[in-house]
């Protein structure tokens, strides 16, 4: 009992740290003026999210998050930023434009609405979570699901990645005759 409640307190503490890191890094991403710092913020965000995933018994997802996202995707980001050179932009300069006001209002509204909706539900279904067994979220568990119930999703994901790869080739490759101007149609 004591262990359980101690575990609970521990989880709470971890959650608080991770959640605030997550929120803070999220805000940082959108508010840093340099894309470089934003990208770093995103890494923090992904990391803290991985912790949250762990708390939710999603071990494999958390691992994938760190490996795929924080590893591969962010590297690509940083690489591109480095390639084109970081350009700073001051999002708040020049006083609030109607676009900025709209942005605050719209995203604020969405946030508040979701929170209210969750709050409405908080005492119901969301207040007690199902008990899961130890295999929940393990790689084996995920792998089984991928090969049975979600076989198709698994396959499609690969196709999406393939398409993206083709896109990367098409868009990123140096054109062989970039100097010549070809009629643009």
């Amino acid at each position: 009992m004591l262990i359980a409640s101690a575990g609970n307190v521990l989880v709470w503490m971890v959650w608080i740290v991770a959640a605030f890191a997550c929120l803070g890094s999220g805000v940082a991403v959108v508010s840093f003026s340099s894309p470089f710092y934003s990208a770093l913020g995103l890494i923090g965000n992904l990391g803290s999210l991985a912790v949250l995933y762990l708390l939710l018994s999603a071990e494999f997802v958390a691992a994938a998050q760190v490996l795929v996202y924080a590893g591969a995707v962010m590297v690509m980001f940083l690489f591109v930023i480095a390639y084109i050179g970081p350009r700073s932009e001051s999002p708040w300069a020049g006083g609030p434009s109607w676009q900025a006001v709209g942005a605050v209002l719209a995203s604020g509204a969405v946030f508040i609405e979701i929170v209210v909706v969750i709050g409405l539900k908080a005492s119901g279904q969301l207040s007690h979570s199902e008990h899961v067994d130890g295999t929940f979220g393990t790689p084996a568990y995920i792998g089984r699901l991928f090969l049975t119930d979600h076989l198709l999703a698994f396959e499609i994901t690969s196709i999406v990645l393939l398409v993206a790869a083709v896109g990367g080739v098409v868009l990123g490759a140096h054109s062989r005759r970039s100097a010549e101007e070809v009629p643009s149609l």
Partner: protein
Amino acid sequence: MVWGAWICLLSPLVAACAITVGGTHLSRRAAGWLATSSCVVAFAGAVASFVGLLTHTASDRQFISTAWTWISGGRYQSGLSVIVDPLSVFMMLIVAGVGGLIVWYSIGYMDGDDEERRYFAYMALFVFSMLLLVQSGNLILLLAGWGMVGLSSYLLIGYWHQRPTAVAAAKKAFVMNAIGDATMALALFLLIQQGNSLEFGVLGGDFSSTVANLVALGLLGGAVAKSAQIPLHTWLPDAMEGPTPVSALIHAATMVTAGVYLIVRTHAIFEQAPKVADVAAGLGAATLLVAGLIALVQVDIKRVIAYSTMSQIGYMFVGAGIGSYPNAMFHLMTHAFFKALLFMTAGIVIHALTDEQDIRKMGGLRQLAPKTYWAFLVGSLALVGIFPFAGFFSKDSILAAAMAKGGAFGYILWAAGLAGTFLTGLYTFRLLFVVFWGEPSAFVREHFHPLGRDVVAFSLAIPVGILGVLSVVGGWIQFSPWWHPVETWLQTVAEPIVSPASWQEWTSIALSLLLGLTGIGVAWAIYGAHRVAVPRIAWAQRTLEHKFYFDEAYDALFYAPAVFLANFLRRGVEQPLIADSGRDLGDDTRDLGGIVARAQTGLVRTYALAIATGVAVLAIVFVIVK
């Protein structure tokens, strides 16, 4: 007999079509002869019908021949039918006979005109229309003929279409007549509603007095317009813009008397609406006086005769209005003779003076054209009603009938008629003296050229001669105190509702002769012998010269408002409201489009904002509404 009527009706139409289609393949003279001979054929047909009717007993003299159903609407239908009865045959004879003479006369009169063929086609068309009017077996065909004569009259008045005055006069005539057509049509609508038929028999039906009054008023409207009676008379003097034979044929002998025919033909309804009949008589009396007065100051030879026509038709209206139908018809016939004669002699004068019509430039023609003078004199005497000329026999019996009608109204009509007789004598002989007496004026000496001895002259002279003879002897067929074959002939169709006593006849004869002669005498004193100066009363002169301001009044009352209204609608409604409003609406829509398109900023952030807003709104509505 019935076939005679059809031949009579159709032969002028055939001629008209043939001339139109023939075009230049037909020589000008041939066109003239074609038209004339078609009238002769028509006359022959009329005679055949007349003879045919004579072989039947008096009570059995009505035949209706229907070719086919001309028009129908549900249960209402009317045939293309002609009626052969004493009244129609009477009119057929006059129309075809006098018409034929006048067309013949035209061959001479119109000789050398550019578009003779057109003229003769129109003339033939007119004769057809007039015959249709008098022969039609039901009211709608009557109305059809009514309109067709209006059309041919329009065509003929405006024959010299390069003259703006002629065109304007033609239009005026047509529009005035159209007003009459319209009122007549309304009367027919009412008849259809009441009786679902337009046969003549329906008029004898049992109508409420309102209906009878309205129908009679509508018909009277048509009659008044066609016969140029007050208040729809103003077109007739202007119509003198047409060639003189046209004036003789249409505006003297036949068409303008159609109103009288109409009243006689439809007398059944007028007898059910005595007040309207009185109105007809009253209008006739008013017209005969007004026209007589205006005629006194006219300086155009044809206009004087035109006003005299109006005045004489006034007599006929009085006769028809008081129910003395045979007398009205009889006067119609004699009037056809002498008025055609007058116009044709006037035409010869005009022809001889190279188309001059102003009597102030004329004078002394008696010496230059004695035969014309004598013909004109015969016509004038017949017009004034001097014994033994035609007018004497017919006019006086109308006056007697007015007297016989009795009552204050009857005597007023009678008095008006008598006063008219005096005026007739005065203006007729004013014209005669001014034109023919005295020394030839400078203008006459310069321009007069006598007729030759060619076809032209013969075709001018022979019809005049025939009409001259008819003007002398034509009246003798009826002398109401003693013999009345016309009345007997028309008895079965139009039984007179007044029969004057013998003393009334004689009183009227005596007084009207006396007054007619007085009029002639006064004219002689002023214009013939120049014993008395022309009396000058400025305001009266002005009023008469302006024809009692009828034209001005109509202009101000109807034409000007119509034009004003039309212009107002064009500038004030059509342009701003109808034409522009559509465009404005279109422009506004496009502007709206511009606003919408401006929301498309090209900025990706705005697009995202729109989506976010959409989601926020949609979600909150869903959650709230559930």
